[in-house]
């Protein structure tokens, strides 16, 4: 205690004023985000919790219904568990395939010595294709009747699947689309692979290590933080997976927009349902804002669990500061 008072006494005049000025300066620089945080994050999040206990259709004033929305979503809403199962499928299959493929393409691009720039650009381009356009393109390429992919498959004599029109093949088709847009992971892995110290490879080669052993004992340990990063961000992206499954389902089902028709999401047979689509379905098709908020909170909880995991890891997001 005494040292503190001592320190206070010794403070040169004007320091408090300077500190206040610095605090004001920080506040001024941070202000756009502080307002944004309050208005577009904190307030709506609290509001979402509030509405999850309300019955509200947007017209009559909201009424308190306790946990009725929650039991409805978990017990009676026919889309909730299919969407959860689909999300799990996508996390297990799509995310891991994307990481493996991204690493593979990253490795390949570091080995290519001729026309590297051309290859890199070609590999990267699909990632840039706007999701609606890319999904539309794949719905065409994979359409069972006249699509080029099935035409080629049948020419070779491989039985052609129904892709977006078949509930067992719709998620694999989405996975194919996700693998096509691997550019982001490719660039991240490429940078990581080029950072692996060359001496370690040389040492391993002197010890007579095979190509696989060099990959297993030199490459993988060096890039494992990046693999982890790719897995966790992949999971978080899966929680947000919305446009591609929705458009794929819409195009494949052939529902014509407008004219009072409403698209029941998840075509075919709920196989492309994801959690964000449920928020839209409940809130903007069924006007059950309360239950939509329940799904939104489930989505929030899942995203935050993985985000916390990401932030706890050293190196992953460079939180250490200076």
């Amino acid at each position: 205690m005494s040292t503190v008072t001592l320190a206070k006494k010794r403070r040169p005049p004007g320091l408090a004023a300077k500190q206040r000025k610095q605090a004001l300066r920080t506040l001024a620089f941070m202000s756009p985000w502080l307002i944004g945080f309050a208005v577009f994050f904190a307030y709506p999040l609290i509001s979402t919790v509030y509405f999850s206990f309300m019955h509200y259709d947007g017209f009559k004033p909201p009424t308190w219904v306790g946990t009725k929305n929650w039991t409805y979503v978990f017990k009676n809403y026919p889309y909730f568990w299919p969407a959860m199962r689909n999300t799990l499928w996508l996390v297990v299959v799509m995310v891991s395939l994307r990481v493996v493929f991204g690493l593979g393409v990253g490795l390949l691009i570091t080995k290519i010595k001729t026309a590297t720039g051309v290859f890199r650009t070609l590999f990267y381009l699909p990632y840039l294709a706007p999701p609606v356009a890319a999904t539309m393109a794949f719905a065409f390429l994979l359409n069972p009747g006249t699509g080029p992919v099935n035409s080629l498959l049948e020419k070779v004599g491989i039985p052609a699947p129904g892709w977006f029109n078949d509930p067992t093949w719709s998620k694999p088709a989405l996975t194919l689309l996700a693998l096509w847009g691997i550019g982001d992971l490719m660039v991240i892995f490429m940078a990581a692979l080029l950072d692996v110290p060359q001496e370690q490879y040389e040492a391993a080669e002197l010890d007579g290590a095979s190509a696989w052993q060099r990959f297993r004992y030199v490459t993988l340990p060096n890039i494992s933080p990046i693999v982890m990063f790719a897995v966790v961000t992949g999971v978080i992206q899966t929680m947000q997976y919305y446009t591609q499954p929705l458009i794929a389902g819409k195009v494949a089902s052939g529902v014509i927009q407008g004219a009072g028709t409403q698209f029941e999401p998840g075509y075919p047979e709920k196989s492309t349902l994801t959690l964000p689509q449920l928020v839209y379905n409940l809130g903007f098709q069924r006007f059950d804002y309360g239950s939509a908020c329940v799904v939104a909170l489930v989505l929030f909880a899942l995203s935050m669990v993985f985000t916390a995991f990401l932030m706890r890891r050293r190196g992953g997001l460079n939180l250490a500061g200076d």
Partner: protein
Amino acid sequence: MAQVLDKPVELRAPVTPAERTARRKALMEWIAVHSLGVAAALFFTLPFVFVFLTSLMSDSQALSRDLIPHTWEWGNYRKVFDTPGFLTWWKNTLIYAGLGTVLTVVSSIPVAYALAKFRFRGRNLSLMLVISMMMLPPQVVIIPMYLFWAKQLDLSGTLWPLIIPMAFGDAFSIFLLRQFLMTIPNEYLDAAKVDGCGEFKTLVRVVLPMAKPGIAAVALFQFFYAWNDYFGPQIYASENPGAWTLSYGLESFKGAHHTDWNLTMAATVLVMAPVILVFFFAQKAFVEGVTLTGVKG
């Protein structure tokens, strides 16, 4: 090939058997790697090629299994442009993406600068909240946000509910810029302060010129985000076709031209092309942005 074998010329003459096998091994590896590369390149480019070829087919041929157009119907693109609304979607997309990008960059820079270079209590907490916001699916807060914009401010049927929030900093842009600004050595800032610059002047005169690549990356990402956004326009603009964007309109175009794959693919090409053109002009900034958010640490 020379790069792979990479051996001085004079060593080439007396070829020992060991050297020959080594050279053959290198050659085999070169062939294996590059055939894999070509196979991968086909996987990544053929979808574009098929889409483009189909966009040039006649109506009847687009419904057949042919891969190459018999007649090259460039008029398909004209037909797409003549579709009522198509030009409006372009205009709206450019407004949303352009205005949104400018607002995002201007509002995110000071925040990113404070998070990167100021020392204050709650800085790490703020950064964690920024990352949380960045990872949050937009659907989580959409119900209250929609009620706010539509019921309280009566702005549904416009793109303003999507543009206005961008004036208050975007989490991803703040994070990316902060990562970039961390790489600028403090000595530059200290030197500017010794010369009598205040924080604001330091930011504008010293930091911004050095941060140009980071700002370019943020601007590109934000532009692409707005260009690609489907959920936002679906929520706020769906009731008013005059406010649709390309990404949203494209889907309804497919609905209206249900069996015309050729026209749908032409429209698809027209939505993809600008993004790819922008990428070719700004490739470096873009790739830098991807690595910055992911790998540095």
